[in-house]
C-alpha cells in the first residue's frame, strides 16, 4: 500500500506541475483520500461528444500500479463501450491489457481516444452498439449528440 501511495503522490505532483498542459483533461484528487480521483475530460472534436464535458470517477486499488484503477463515467454518455446506467467502461487497458506504465493522465487520454473510436463489437450499451453495427451512423451520432447536449453541456438559461 505504501508503494501505491508513493506512486499516486508522484502523479499528483506531476498533475500540479503540468496543470493546463493538456487542455482536454483536468484531473483532481480527493481532498482527504489519495485513492479517489475525479477527472473532467472534453469530448473530442468531430465526434458527437464535441462541446461536452464529461466527468470520470477513479477508484484506485491498494495494489496500484500493479492493478488498474477502476474508472467510470459520472456523466451520462451514449457510447457502445460505456454502460448507460452505471458508467462502467469496457476498455482493454483497464482490464487484462493493463500495464503499470500507464498513469491516470494517460488513462484519461485512452478514454478520450475510445470516445472517438467506439468498438461496437464489444458493447456494454447494446442499443448504441446495434446502431453502429447495423450501419446507422447517423442514428448513433444523433442519439449521442442528444445525450451530450442533455447531460454534458451547461444548461442554457
Amino acid at each position, binding site marked *: *500500500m505504501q*508503494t501505491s501511495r*508513493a*506512486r499516486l503522490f*508522484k*502523479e499528483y505532483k*506531476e498533475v500540479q*506541475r*503540468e496543470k493546463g*498542459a*493538456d487542455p482536454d483533461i483536468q484531473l483532481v484528487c480527493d481532498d482527504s483520500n489519495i485513492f479517489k480521483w475525479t477527472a473532467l475530460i472534453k469530448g473530442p472534436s468531430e465526434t458527437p461528444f464535441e462541446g461536452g464535458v464529461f466527468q470520470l470517477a477513479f477508484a484506485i486499488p*491498494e*495494489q496500484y*500500479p*500493479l*492493478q488498474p484503477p477502476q474508472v467510470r463515467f459520472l456523466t451520462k454518455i451514449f457510447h457502445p463501450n460505456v454502460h448507460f446506467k452505471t458508467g462502467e467502461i469496457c476498455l482493454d487497458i483497464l482490464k*487484462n491489457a493493463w*500495464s*503499470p*506504465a500507464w*498513469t491516470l493522465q*494517460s488513462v484519461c*487520454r485512452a478514454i478520450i481516444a475510445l470516445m472517438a473510436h467506439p468498438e461496437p463489437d464489444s458493447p456494454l450499451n447494446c442499443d448504441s452498439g446495434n446502431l453502429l453495427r447495423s450501419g446507422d451512423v447517423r442514428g448513433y451520432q444523433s442519439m449521442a449528440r442528444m445525450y451530450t447536449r442533455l447531460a454534458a453541456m451547461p444548461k442554457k438559461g
Partner: protein
Amino acid sequence: MEEQRNSMSKSREQAEGESSPSSSSSSSHPCPICLSPTPQLQESYLDRCFHKFCYKCIVQWTKVVASRHSEAPSSLFCPFCKTENFSIIHGYDGSSFERHYVSQIFSDSVFFTEAHRYRLQCYYTEPGILSDAFDIKRFWKSRKYLQSNPWLYSWLKREIQALMQEEDVDVVVHHMLGTIESSLRRDDQKLKAPELKAPEERQREFKMLLHDAARPFLTGRTDRFVDEAELFLASGLNLEAYDNVYRQRFDQKNPRIDSLEEPTNDGAVILQSLFVFDEDQDGAE
C-alpha cells in the same frame, strides 16, 4: 538501434504531450512503474528493448503477470513498449552483471516451494473443501483451542509467504501469532470468571481480531485466510498431516491440481465447476 529508440521515445513524448524538462536525458528517466528515480543498485534492464526499471518493481510486475497463468510464463512484455523480453539484466557494475530469466523468477526463488504454490492455489478455489473434515463447532464448544498448537508458527509462515509472495515475512507472522495466541489466552483467563462466553461469541471475537490484524497485509484475501487459519487450528494436525488431508480432498475434486508436471491450464477454474456437482455427495459422507 540507438536512433530508433530515440525516435520512438520522442514520438511517444509528442503523442502524449509529455514535455517534462527534467526527463530529457535518458539517465534521469524515472522507473515507469514507481515513477521514482531508480537507485543505482536497483537498476535493471529488459534484454530486448532495454527499457530501464527498478529491479524490485519489474520483478513484482513479472510475478503479477505470472500469477495470472497456471504455468510460469517464459517471456514478459515490456510494460512500456510491449516488446517481448526473456530476461532481466541486473546488477551491472561495469564488468559483470546478473541475468534473471523470466521463466525462473518463480522457480529459482528458494523460498517459494511447490507447497507454497499449492497453498496459493487453494485461495483460488471455492471455500468449504474441508468443512466436513474437521469439526469447527466442536473446536470452540469443547474449548480445544486451549491446547496450543506447536505447528501454528510454521503453518502461518508458509501461508503468509505464499499469499504475499515474499520471503521475509517474520514480522507479519509474529504479529498474527501474537494476535491468535493472545486472543486464545484471554479466553483462558475468562475461564475462571463465573460467566463464560458462548462458544459462538468467542469464535466471532477471534475471527474479528485476526481479521483486523491480517487485513493490512493480505487485503482481499483476508476473509479466506481467517477461515483457513480457523480450519487449521480446528484440525489439530501437524503441517504434514494437514496437507495430506487437504491434498486428498483436492485430488478427489481434480486429480491434477498438485501435479505440476502435467500442464494444467485452467486447473482452478475446472475445480470450481466440479464443486457444484460434488457438493451433495460431500454432504452425504
